[in-house]
């Protein structure tokens, strides 16, 4: 029987080079740890394995930056790319659709930017991991971090539900395992099991919802789903109860992944129990990737179901997301007020931040600015991720020197390490959202998007949501300031205070501070970049010849690409 496969373009593998490199490097790290470093003493082994991992991250980062360069050249200066790479590669890289592997993955500027972001953050997390000894299975631990990142990068790039699902699972399964790696502490095992159970239940719910979306639309491609939904009736939830159930189930799935109230139960326990670097990676990498793909699914694929009836509480997911956002930020902030444990406080604060970001998601779906509105969310994610990586490096510091993570352990830090204390102040201020740090502009951008939108039915409620967000920012100041109070107003304990931070702790804090400050003082380059990548990210359309020839004759008319989410479907007036 003849093989009837579609011809595949092997150059596609070049465009996922960072992911390929990283997954191979994971094996290298495991093998090297087993074969070479096992017999060394714990300290030097940790440093050696960590360094090896960092080399891999560096290689992947280099490839990601190179791809970024190529892709930006392809957009800005195509002839130069021609000269650099030769005709065929140049034309391959400047293909307009930006989809690879038959449309299952996105590539191009958005993916490159996100890959660079993930890899930078991963570098910081890996570096933090070398700060203190929490596990003996170093090779496996670092490999899992790398593989989780592969999952994140492909998750953020996925344009199709099967790829999305498997990438999501790769990411979370690696993180379940990594959070149980601190074998000397029972709470780490507990964190792993809790994360696992909540996570796999949520992915089962998500999958069930996903199966209905597939059933309703007959396809798994985001773009095609969006087109089918846009073409169909505009009833949204009301007209199609099972569609509503699917939306809710998918929302539950994403809600678990980004720790939105009421699906946040796992987050505090897991953040507290897992080793600090793993918590950092759960709080930043996994959250960024989940939010990016949530933007894609909800704005690109399910965009037509956002609020088809033009009323906030009418059929559509917008109302649900608004309620989720309000509950999430309020609950997160109020619960964080009661915390004495630093990591737990960060957990609740990250829940609260998920609430702000959800405001952005809701706003982007109705914004008049079109897909660019999602740029605000992306900007917020970047800033949030850096600030949190820095904050969790502090947690690693606490775990190294105090073997605990109470906020009180930070007492008097301003005296012993004044420079780093200033950096922590900057991070906390940015998390609160105080100008001139980047957190402020992130919040500003999101709230501006929420206010700047057309349909009158949603305007009032979103304005209220913004007001609630502002109130919440004020509330959040109280618990972040508690950290500052401990550092500046309390005396250091006479014995057993925090030692001097080694580079593994200092570098992430400093880098995070620099990023947060720089993006705060000059917010526009990053903001412009994010706005620029938001559009291709959320409108990626297959222009592939194969898809068109596959099309049924009758469907030829609908195969034309057309922006989905932001053309408000013609309503029966």
């Amino acid at each position, binding site marked *: 029987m003849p093989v009837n496969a579609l011809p595949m373009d092997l150059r596609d593998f070049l465009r996922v080079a960072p992911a390929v490199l990283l997954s191979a490097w994971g094996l290298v790290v495991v093998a090297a740890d087993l074969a070479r470093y096992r017999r060394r003493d714990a300290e030097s082994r940790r440093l050696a394995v960590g360094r090896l991992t960092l080399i891999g991250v560096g290689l992947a980062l280099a490839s990601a930056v190179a791809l970024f360069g190529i892709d930006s050249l392809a957009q800005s200066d195509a002839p130069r790319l021609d000269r650099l790479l030769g005709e065929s590669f140049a034309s391959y890289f400047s293909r307009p659709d930006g989809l690879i592997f038959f449309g299952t993955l996105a590539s191009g500027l958005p993916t490159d930017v996100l890959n660079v972001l993930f890899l930078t953050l991963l570098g910081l997390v890996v570096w933090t991991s070398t700060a203190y000894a929490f596990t003996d299975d170093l090779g496996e631990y670092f490999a899992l971090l790398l593989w989780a990142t592969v999952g994140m990068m492909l998750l953020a790039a996925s344009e199709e539900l099967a790829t999305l699902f498997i990438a999501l699972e790769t990411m979370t399964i690696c993180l379940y395992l990594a959070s149980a*790696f601190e074998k000397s502490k029972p709470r780490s095992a507990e964190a*792993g099991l809790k994360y696992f159970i909540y996570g796999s239940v949520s992915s089962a719910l998500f999958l069930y919802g996903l199966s209905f979306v597939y059933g309703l639309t007959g396809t798994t491609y985001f773009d095609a789903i969006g087109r*089918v939904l846009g073409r169909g009736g505009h009833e949204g939830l009301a007209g199609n109860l*099972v569609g509503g159930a699917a939306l809710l189930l998918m929302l539950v799935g994403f809600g678990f992944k980004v720790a939105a109230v009421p699906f946040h139960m796992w987050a505090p326990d897991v953040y507290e129990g897992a080793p600090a670097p793993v918590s950092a990676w759960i709080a930043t990498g996994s959250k960024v990737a989940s939010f990016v793909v949530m933007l894609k699914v909800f704005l690109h694929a399910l965009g037509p179901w956002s609020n088809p009836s033009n009323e906030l509480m009418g059929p559509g997911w917008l109302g649900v997301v608004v309620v989720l956002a309000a509950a999430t930020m309020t609950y997160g902030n109020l619960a964080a007020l009661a915390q004495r444990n630093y990591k737990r406080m960060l957990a609740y604060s990250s829940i609260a931040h998920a609430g702000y970001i959800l405001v952005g998601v809701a706003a982007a779906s109705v914004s008049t600015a079109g897909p660019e509105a999602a740029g605000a969310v992306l900007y917020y994610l970047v800033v949030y991720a850096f600030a949190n990586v820095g904050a969790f490096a502090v947690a690693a510091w606490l775990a190294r020197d105090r073997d605990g993570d109470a906020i009180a352990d930070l007492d008097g830090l301003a005296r012993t390490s004044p420079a780093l204390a200033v950096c922590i102040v900057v991070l906390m201020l940015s998390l609160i959202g105080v100008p001139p740090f980047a957190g402020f502009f992130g919040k500003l951008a999101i709230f501006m998007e929420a206010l700047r939108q057309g349909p009158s039915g949603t305007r009032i409620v979103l304005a209220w949501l913004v007001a609630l967000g502002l109130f919440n920012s004020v509330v959040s100041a109280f618990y972040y300031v508690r950290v500052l109070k401990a550092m500046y107003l309390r005396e250091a304990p006479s014995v057993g205070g925090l030692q001097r931070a080694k580079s593994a702790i200092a570098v992430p804090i400093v880098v995070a501070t620099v990023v947060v400050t720089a993006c705060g003082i000059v917010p526009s380059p990053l903001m412009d970049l994010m706005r620029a990548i938001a559009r291709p990210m959320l409108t990626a359309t297959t222009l592939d010849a194969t898809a068109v020839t596959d099309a049924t004759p009758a469907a030829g008319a609908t195969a034309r690409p057309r922006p989905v989410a932001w053309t408000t479907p013609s309503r029966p007036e």
Partner: protein
Amino acid sequence: MGEVVVARILFLAIAALGLLAALGTVLSRNLVHAALHLVGFFFCVACLFVMLEAEFLAAVQVLIYIGAVAILLMFGIMLTRNTRGDDATSLSGPWRLPGLVAGLCLFGALVFGINNAVSPSGASPWAGEAARPSLVEREGEPAWAAERRRAVEDMGRVVGEEFLTRYAMAFELAGLLLTAALVGAVALAHRDEVGAAELPPTVEALPADSAEPVGTAAS
């Protein structure tokens, strides 16, 4: 017509058995019995796959779920000496009724939704006499009909083609996922000879009869 009735009766029998098995999994106190019921459920699902003309998938289902997952679960049950029907393995008493009611409500809502669903892609509603698209070759059939006929007739091959072209990245990721799960699970479950000695023996006292061999009936 007779054929159709037989198919429907067969479906109903399989579905009923599958649901009973699922209920058994959820309700039985003894974990080994629960696992056995789970095997029955997996098998019924495999039979449903066969009825959906996806026999390759059915074989894979039997292979992975019964041949690997069930065995793994059994090992987990044995290694945690957890076969006894103590209250930790049973449903929590006061929550039993509300839980069942919640489940019924969910089922009712889903059935209502499925009954009223109208697929935006195809014109047909899901409920009622939805005939499956024919696999008989016809003149002027759409391209997808030919594709599907080929997929049904030689699913193993088409799955392979799809995995190596369209879903190449998903396929690679699945491999990575399995590697990661293997590496991580081994690292976690591996008992360090040194570490085990330092641990406190137990958090709470072992039940008095736990020195018995692990195989224990629920009688």
